[in-house]
């Protein structure tokens, strides 16, 4: 960021009169918008098409295949259709809160993409509290979901909103504990330094650092599935009971905002697991030095591809899970969180991690 600012100030005479803060702010806004428009929006669109095709394959159907080759432009057609649709606001709904809710959900999800890295240099802002900021900001989504459930003035929406809120607030605890395990290992909250603390090869990843990390990984994975309302934890929008949950009364673009959030969240779950456990964008040092001779662009492209491929593997696992597993009941959901994941999280992140770091390693060092 400093490089870009000094370059701009050096090359544009008009910018020299502006305060530096202002240039930083403008650049951050531009970077955020670029991430949103060039990556997150197309990703959410295309993944909606991919998910429908996979679902169709699982259910032995064909799926959308009419718009463009193999139906690849279906998401654009759907987007245009929902933009042109009438935006219906129920007469009995609280119209201000009803209109506001989708924006809160949208903002909560996309503010999290500020700290999601794409390569060693491509990140909107590498905050020193990175992963903690991510947990904090995504909790705004809950407020939006509850608002939409209440403002719709519909019992299905209300039930869906409340189920979703209960689920997200509960599962934040095991997710936070698993993330804590990684934070203790790396000694930093910044996502870029967590990635730098790992290496390119699987045995350098945090996933295989010690016997308890795979457990932390799985419990983070389950918890983030539940936080993202994905099957098998999609009881907030269980169509057999609640029509469509909190988004029942929404139509047109406001409806799309909710689904947009869901698909963007799919990438967010995958990106967080990749960054924390699967080595992120790390490349073998031979490849890095080779790429640097060809220029920085190639290096960042390779790092981006590494990160993206790992994240996509996670995304496909999540999609496959959705069409494979049945939905859990509410009591099973809560029991899983409070009776299993939370105690496991405590054992993994606090007890054994501290023991591993400060006693076992010291003992090994003293023996050697």
């Amino acid at each position, binding site marked *: 960021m400093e490089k870009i600012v000094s370059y701009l100030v050096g090359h544009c005479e008009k910018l020299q009169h502006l305060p530096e803060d202002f240039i930083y*702010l403008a650049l951050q806004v531009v970077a955020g918008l670029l991430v949103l428009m060039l990556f997150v929006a197309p990703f959410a669109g295309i993944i909606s098409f991919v998910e429908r095709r996979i679902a169709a394959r699982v259910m032995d159907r064909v799926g959308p295949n009419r718009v463009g080759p193999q139906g690849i432009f279906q998401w654009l057609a759907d987007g245009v259709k929902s933009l042109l649709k009438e935006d219906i606001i129920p007469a009995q709904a609280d119209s201000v*809160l009803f209109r506001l809710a989708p924006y809160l959900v949208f903002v909560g999800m996309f503010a999290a993409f500020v700290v999601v890295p794409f390569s060693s240099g491509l990140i909107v802002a590498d905050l*020193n*509290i990175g992963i903690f900021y991510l947990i*904090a*900001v995504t*909790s705004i989504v809950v407020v939006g979901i509850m608002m939409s459930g209440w403002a719709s003035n519909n019992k299905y929406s209300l039930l869906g909103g409340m189920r979703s*809120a209960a689920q997200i*607030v509960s599962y*934040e605890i095991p997710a936070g504990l698993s993330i804590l395990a990684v934070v203790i290992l790396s000694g930093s909250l910044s996502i870029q330094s967590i990635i730098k603390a790992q290496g390119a090869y699987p045995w350098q990843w945090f996933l295989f650092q010690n016997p308890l990390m795979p457990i932390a990984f799985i419990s983070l994975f389950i918890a983030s599935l539940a936080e993202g309302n994905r099957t098998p934890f999609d009881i907030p929008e269980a169509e057999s009971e609640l029509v469509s949950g909190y988004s029942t009364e929404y139509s047109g673009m406001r409806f799309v905002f909710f689904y947009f959030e869901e698909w963007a969240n799919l990438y967010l779950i995958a990106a967080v697991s990749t960054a924390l456990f699967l080595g992120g964008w790390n490349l073998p040092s031979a490849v890095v030095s080779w790429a640097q001779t060809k220029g920085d662009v190639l290096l960042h492209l390779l790092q981006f591809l590494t990160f993206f491929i790992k994240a996509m593997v996670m995304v496909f696992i999540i999609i496959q899970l959705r069409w494979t597993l049945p939905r859990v009941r509410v009591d099973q959901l809560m029991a899983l969180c409070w009776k299993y994941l939370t105690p496991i999280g405590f054992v993994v992140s606090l007890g054994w991690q501290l023991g591993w770091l400060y006693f076992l390693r010291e003992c090994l060092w003293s023996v050697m």
Partner: protein
Amino acid sequence: MQLAFFYFFSGLSILSALFVIFFRNTLSAAIALVVTLFGVACLFGLLEAHFLAAMQVLVYAGAVMVLFLFVIMLMNLGREELLKIKLAFLGIIGVITGVCLAILLVTRFMGLSAPLLSLDLGVEYGTVKSVGKLLFGEYLIPFELTSILLLVAIIGAITLARKPQS
């Protein structure tokens, strides 16, 4: 630049705090409270206390307010039920407490002026590390006492909510 942000966020907090008082609808008031807390978090951010800012959003806007909304929705407090409660006695107590608090705050901060971030705070200021050192060093006993207080509240809530075993 920072001054502009300061006025914007403090204005936002004060305005939404007023909305909390004047909204008749309990749910709208709760949402306005979320905005107030979010504005306060932004002020923390402006004061270089990034960890506190994130904590404010996570704990207040994320967890506490969600529970508030939950209770409001579960009990479905409408306008009619609120008006039924006799407010005369509570009102007098409220006015006295409010006036006392206002006098305290005005006398405390009158004539006090602090520059907005012209101090050199050092790199460590406001990071997780320095906050953690303060919490687990200088303020360890108050910190632990607070956690015991919270534990007592949790156990009390469970005891009250539990169905008596027959």
